[in-house]
């Protein structure tokens, strides 16, 4: 049974139609990530679920009960805010206990509950401090503690990690995922960071301009994006898009780029696309699907291309190499020592099995 059910939800901010007809069902115990660029309506959707914003049309059900007319306190939810929103005049213990006390939890239960939450987050030693005495990472732990101390039906996270530095963010990502596994609660997590979405989610709901662009398991979205937007949004560095034309090529199909380069498509894909010969397409190639060609390798669907490297960005484990493909700048993810200097010529093999072809008029993936 769905723990959260959203039906045809609309939300306006003045003249701005921020959320435009969202339908969403979230099963109990699932970790769902709402992801999208800033302004796509993901935070608004979350705040509407929480009851911090009123919806204009549609309905929200939590655990089978229609709740969108109820104030936040009666929706059985807990929430972690982006800027922590801790109560500055209370000690950490009281911050975590505030919700329990507000809900008239018996005194004898409060201490053990706070202890348990603090233990899960490793913040026992902070209970006696004030928020102003804590670092950003500690504040975020307390904010999470304040949410998980209560036995809520739904846990909402509004970009909780965006104020933390990169290292801490990696750490907290794992922490939150571990908490979800331990608690087994339904959680909805909003972020603009596709890495957070990919690593944490059971299911990603990718939003754009107030509607759901695509929803599904992270790898499904990554490997089978429905639109160009989804393909470009997930993955880092993001997918390369090159304008091309579908042509007949050596018995099958191929893509012909503006500079005359022809990249053959594997036979398995040719059949579906045969009706589109001579139409323009957008060829989407992920950086990790372009590798240095090894002599003698001959898997079906590998296209070879001699690239002149224009820019190198070594990260240590991988090196991002920029070169021109069909007149467009394209990034390939190579092994660290595949290329050593710019202007170097290198033979690349492009895995056309994994290439994404997009219809330029609808931006849908073919």
């Amino acid at each position, binding site marked *: 049974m769905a723990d959260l059910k959203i039906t045809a939800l609309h939300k306006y901010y003045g003249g701005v139609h921020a959320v435009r007809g969202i339908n969403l069902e979230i099963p109990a115990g699932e970790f769902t990530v709402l992801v999208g660029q800033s302004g796509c309506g993901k935070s608004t959707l979350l705040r509407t679920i*929480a*009851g*911090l914003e009123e919806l204009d049309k549609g309905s929200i059900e939590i655990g089978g009960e229609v709740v969108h007319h109820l*104030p*936040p*306190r009666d929706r059985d*939810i*807990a*929430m972690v*805010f*982006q*800027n922590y*929103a*801790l*109560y*500055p*005049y*209370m000690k950490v213990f009281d911050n975590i206990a*505030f*919700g329990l006390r*507000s*809900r008239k939890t018996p005194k004898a239960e409060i201490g053990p509950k706070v202890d348990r939450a603090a233990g899960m987050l490793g913040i026992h030693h902070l209970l006696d401090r004030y928020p102003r005495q804590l670092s950003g990472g500690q504040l975020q732990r307390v904010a999470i503690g*304040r949410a998980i101390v*209560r036995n809520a039906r739904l846990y909402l996270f509004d970009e909780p990690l965006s104020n933390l530095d990169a290292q801490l963010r990696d750490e907290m990502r794992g922490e939150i995922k571990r908490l979800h596994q331990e608690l087994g609660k339904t959680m909805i997590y909003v972020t603009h960071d596709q890495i957070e979405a990919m690593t944490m989610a059971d299911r990603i709901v990718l939003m754009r301009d107030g509607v759901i662009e695509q929803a599904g398991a992270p790898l499904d979205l990554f490997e089978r994006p429905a639109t160009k937007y989804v393909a470009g949004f997930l993955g880092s560095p993001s997918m390369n898009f090159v304008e091309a034309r579908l042509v007949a090529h050596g018995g099958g199909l191929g893509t012909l780029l503006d500079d005359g380069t022809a990249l053959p498509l594997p036979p398995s894909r040719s059949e579906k696309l045969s009706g589109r010969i001579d139409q323009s397409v957008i060829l989407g190639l992920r950086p990790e699907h372009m590798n240095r060609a090894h002599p003698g390798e001959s898997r079906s669907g590998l296209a070879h291309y001699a690239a002149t490297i224009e820019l190198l960005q070594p990260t240590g484990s991988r090196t991002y190499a920029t070169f021109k493909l069909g007149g467009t700048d394209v990034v390939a993810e190579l092994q660290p020592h595949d290329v050593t200097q710019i202007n170097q010529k290198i033979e690349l093999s492009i895995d056309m099995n994994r290439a994404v072809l997009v219809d330029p008029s609808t931006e849908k993936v073919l």
Partner: protein
Amino acid sequence: MRAAFADRNFKYLLIGPAIFVLLLIGVFPLVYLLIVSFQGITMTEVSTEFVGGRNYAQLFDDVRMWEALLHTVIFTAIALPIELLLGLAMAQLFLEKLPGRQIFIALLVLPVVVSPIVSGATWSLLFDHRFGPINQVIGWITGNDTAILWTIKPNLVYPAIIAAEIWQWTPFMFLLLLAALANVDKSQLEAASIDGAGWWRTFFRIVLPAIWPVMAIAILIRGLDLFRLFDIIWALTRGGPGTMTETISMFTYVKGFQQFETSYTAAVAFLVIILLSAVVMLALKRVELAR
């Protein structure tokens, strides 16, 4: 050596003028006041001989002075909480986005702009027992001709004065508290609403601690203002009937500038300074503790 000496002491030269001005306008009058309070100066004689503690001894037997002090405390104790609560309620009301909010706030704040002596005079017209609109309106409601002696009847003068005082100075509280309330972190309020806190709990546990520093200062400013309450009462009752509404600052004024007992007035003034300093110091300490 000489150059080094000049270098080292140049800073004193720089702050010298400021210190001098401070001493001149701050410390000198205070010291001089203290000296005068031990003399026997009246404006009707030329004698400036020292009389020891005579003025202070006289102070403690002066029933009118103690009553004036009591009246001042009563005005403060009644008007201050009302102004605070009323100002807070209004600020809470105007926190919401309303059409014409700016205009309403500007209109509400007008009384603060009026000089207290003018507002006193205006209220004295309003309270006038024959021509005043207040009696007129009461007359319309009750259907009888009304001639209530607002500024004369002993049981009505306090309400009348306090009403005028509240009318004039509540907007001041309102303005400061509005600014303070507007600065309360919204996400904390949202967190509290999700945490299940009702309005009262949210107000006392989250809003009040957040606005307390500003509120404490507002209370202090208004408290001190009320302690030297003068103009409104002067315009309404001149301290009457009898000396029933005379405050300590009115008493000081009457003693010093109508009865010309200069040294005795200095003693009164010094007593007030001591009392007020003690109150302010205590108050500041409380504010700091609360932080």
